[in-house]
């Protein structure tokens, strides 16, 4: 049974003064997330990631389409007891302390009182907030709030967790900790669905990703599957300090360092380059395929339409 | 800070005294009632307090008019018809002429009847109604009717029946008047009402004394064929213990043409006897404070 099945969820807002102009935040989306995987939902800002998440959480009502979460209709109240949600840039009741907040949320999630205390301590330790559990949330820094958000999302030991930009506001150490946490969740059999625009995080963590842009799904699959559709590059190193004219003619980028020259060229030019070197009697040191990063995939796939500012990292 | 206080003081001197209307805020009872948003009781307390202050201040300032007293009392009783002190105040101070009161006996009657309508079991209001008829309008018949109505109220004070009877034949008697003013004095804790009643009782004594003394002087003249030369002669003739004195402690005097006179008429604002001929009250009404 898949953890999440999104069946044509769609959202169109009516904007404008008379609310007549339709604005399609999300075109009908079909997506499946399997149990036990870490699934990345990628896209630039405004792509529709948060809209999708909000619809799954029941915060926003879809224009059409349905979804199934953990085998049940997504609107079933009992589903909520088994999922956790970390919204983007979360706010909490700032007059509560971290401990009080978790206690309150625990009550609302139906965590029995006997387990609650122990569970709160456990979770606080996991996110590194044990020292400040008695401090009011209004005094928390952005990073601390993020950790509190993660804590409340996993407090009731949900089977499926939804994170919206979980790394936002964290320093590199914090990001590392969150990545470790997500790995741990996976190891314990949980499913993690997280949205982000930080590609390196997705590359490091995700089993599979979906890429969304301007409300439309642009690709789903493992990272290898996706990047293999894009032309790769090859690195070629030969001895000497000379760049043959034929190499230059191929348009290879060359750098001389020490006693070797390094050139980067596209895969299809590989054979031509090797021939050129042999003719010049250059000694080949190595040929290495450069793994395409997700970034190039992104750029290439989304090249024809403008991306919104400041998105790719 | 000091400069601002000084300036305020100067400004106060320059500005004309606050006009009468300022006292009321709003003149119409209906409007005030609406503006109270249902909190009539509290507004009534506020207006009653202002009514008393208004009267007290003007009285203290030796003012001659109390034009806003009736509206203030009317607003108070519209807001809370069950508050009794305003009716009593109206009974004492709405009817009498200036400078003792507002000079509006008809409005006083209306106020009393309004009070009776809303508090039919309060015997004191019938007394107040009768009081107005008696003291100011001198309508002893109506006074008697009011006292009679009041005597029929359950738990009414027995003296109402007595008063009703007195109105028949003895309305003009000093004893009756004294009974009424004493009842008013004892029936209220309000400072102004008590002072006023006390003053009336003092003056009543003077009127009574002068009347009796005048009768003695007439008897003397009858007997001796001439006017007495001094009070001594009268006192001797009547076998009095000494020369009669007025409540101030001053002896009564005899004028050249045989009229009994009071030494300081100004001290007795309500007397009708013992005044020198052509006497006009010049200085304002002065109440002797209770000691």
């Amino acid at each position, binding site marked *: 049974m898949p953890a999440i099945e999104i069946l044509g969820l769609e959202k169109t807002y009516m904007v404008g003064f008379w609310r007549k102009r339709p604005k399609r935040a999300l075109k009908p989306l079909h997506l499946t997330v399997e149990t036990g995987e870490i699934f990345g939902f990628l896209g630039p800002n405004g792509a529709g990631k948060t809209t999708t998440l*909000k619809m799954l*959480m*029941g*915060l*926003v*009502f879809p224009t059409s389409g349905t979804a199934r979460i953990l085998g049940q209709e997504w609107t079933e*109240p*009992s589903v*909520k*007891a088994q*999922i*956790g*949600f*970390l*919204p983007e840039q*979360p*706010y*909490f*009741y700032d*007059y*509560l302390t971290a401990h009080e907040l978790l206690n*309150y*949320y625990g*009550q*609302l*999630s*139906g965590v029995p009182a006997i387990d609650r205390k122990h569970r709160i301590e456990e979770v606080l330790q996991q996110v590194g907030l044990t020292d400040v559990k008695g401090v009011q949330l209004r005094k928390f820094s952005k990073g601390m709030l993020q950790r509190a*958000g993660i804590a*409340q*999302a996993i407090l009731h030991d949900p089977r499926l967790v*939804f994170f919206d930009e979980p790394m936002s506001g964290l320093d590199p150490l914090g990001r590392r900790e969150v990545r470790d946490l997500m790995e741990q969740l996976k190891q314990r059999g949980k499913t993690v669905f997280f949205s982000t625009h930080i590609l390196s995080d997705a590359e490091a963590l995700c089993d599979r990703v979906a890429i969304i842009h301007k409300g439309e799904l642009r690709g789903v699959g493992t990272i290898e599957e996706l990047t293999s559709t894009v032309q790769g590059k090859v690195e070629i190193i030969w001895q000497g300090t000379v760049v043959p004219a034929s190499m230059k003619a191929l348009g290879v980028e060359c750098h001389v360092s020490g006693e070797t020259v390094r050139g980067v060229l596209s895969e299809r030019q590989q054979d031509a380059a090797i021939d050129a070197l042999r003719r010049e009697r250059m000694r080949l040191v190595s040929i290495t395929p450069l793994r395409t990063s997700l970034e190039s995939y992104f750029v290439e796939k989304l090249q024809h339409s403008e991306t919104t500012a400041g998105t790719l990292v | 800070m000091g400069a601002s206080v000084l300036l305020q003081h100067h400004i106060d001197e320059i500005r004309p005294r606050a006009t009468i209307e300022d006292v009321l805020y709003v003149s119409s009872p209906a409007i005030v009632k*609406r503006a109270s*948003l*249902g*909190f*009539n*009781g*509290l507004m*009534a*307390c506020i207006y*009653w*307090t202002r009514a*008393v202050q208004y009267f007290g201040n003007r009285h203290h300032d030796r003012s001659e008019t109390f034009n806003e007293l009736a509206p203030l009392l009317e607003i108070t009783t519209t807001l*809370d018809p*069950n*508050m009794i*002190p305003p009716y009593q105040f109206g009974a004492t101070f709405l009817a009498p002429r200036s400078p003792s009161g507002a000079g509006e006996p008809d409005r006083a009657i209306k106020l009393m009847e309004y009070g009776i309508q809303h508090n039919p079991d309060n015997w004191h209001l019938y007394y107040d109604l009768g009081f107005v008829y008696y003291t100011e309008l001198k309508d002893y018949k109506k006074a008697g009717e009011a006292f009679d109505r009041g005597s029929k109220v359950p738990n009414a004070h027995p003296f109402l029946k007595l008063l009703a009877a007195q109105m028949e034949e003895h309305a003009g008697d000093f004893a009756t008047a004294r009974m009424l003013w004493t009842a008013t004095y004892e029936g*209220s*804790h*309000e*400072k102004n009402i008590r002072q006023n009643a006390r003053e009336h009782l003092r003056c009543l004594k003077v009127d009574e004394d002068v009347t009796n003394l005048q009768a003695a002087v007439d008897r003397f003249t009858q007997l001796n064929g001439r006017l007495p030369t001094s009070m001594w002669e009268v006192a001797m003739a009547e076998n009095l213990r000494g020369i009669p004195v007025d409540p101030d402690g001053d002896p009564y005097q005899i004028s050249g043409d045989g009229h009994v006179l009071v030494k300081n008429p100004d001290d007795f604002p309500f007397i009708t006897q013992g005044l020198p001929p052509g006497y006009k009250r010049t200085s304002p009404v002065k109440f002797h404070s209770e000691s």
Partner: protein
Amino acid sequence: MNSRILHIASNTFREAVRDRVLYNLIAFAVLISGAAILVGEISIEIERLVVVNLGLTAVSLFGVVIAIFIGIGLVSKEIEKRTLYTVLSRPVRRWEFIVGKFLGLAGTLVVNTLFMAIGVFAALFYVAHKLSAPDALIVVALYFIILEFLIICSLSLLFSSFSTPLLSAVFAFSLFVIGSFADDLRGFARVTHGITKWFATGAAYLLPNFSALNVISAVAHQKHIGVQLILQNTLYALVYAAMALSGAVLIFERRNLK
């Protein structure tokens, strides 16, 4: 009763307390003590009247202000600050959220009123030097004031579910004022004809009737309050509040949370 609703209610109460709402009790204490002490100097013969009238009027007004000022933000603040997201992602139904908020605010006001009641009785004892049986009527007046609060809370919550705080405050306060004129409105409806009569009568019955719930002056004069009135007012307040809350729930359940 649903434990989630209770938890939301107690959290709402906690929020109000941490918002220092209960400090209003200090202002009230100063007011009522001042009145009790000075009333003898200013208004002879009506000390009791003043203390009861002033005390109960203050309880009513302070409470209405609190009910409106906190009520209007109950939902809109949570939407604006997005604290709702993590709450609604839990097994909390939207209607439970509204009811919980309502109970929390109502509870805050009941506690507040309780403290004030002690103050009023203390002041009364001070000026009258004893408390007699008819003074128990003050409790009836306080009970009616609490019923008023229930209605106002539910109305504030209703407005909060779809309107901005400023507008909600204006609406709620306007309804309070108009509701105080309920008797006048009925009188007006009686003397008009035709369409106007329809409108006036409709308005008179649709708008909250606060004049029926205001027995302050009567209680100050120790007039008896009939059991009939108590029962009917209770029913009215509960039905009216339920109606307003249902409206709030209906609106809130359809709302897309941006």
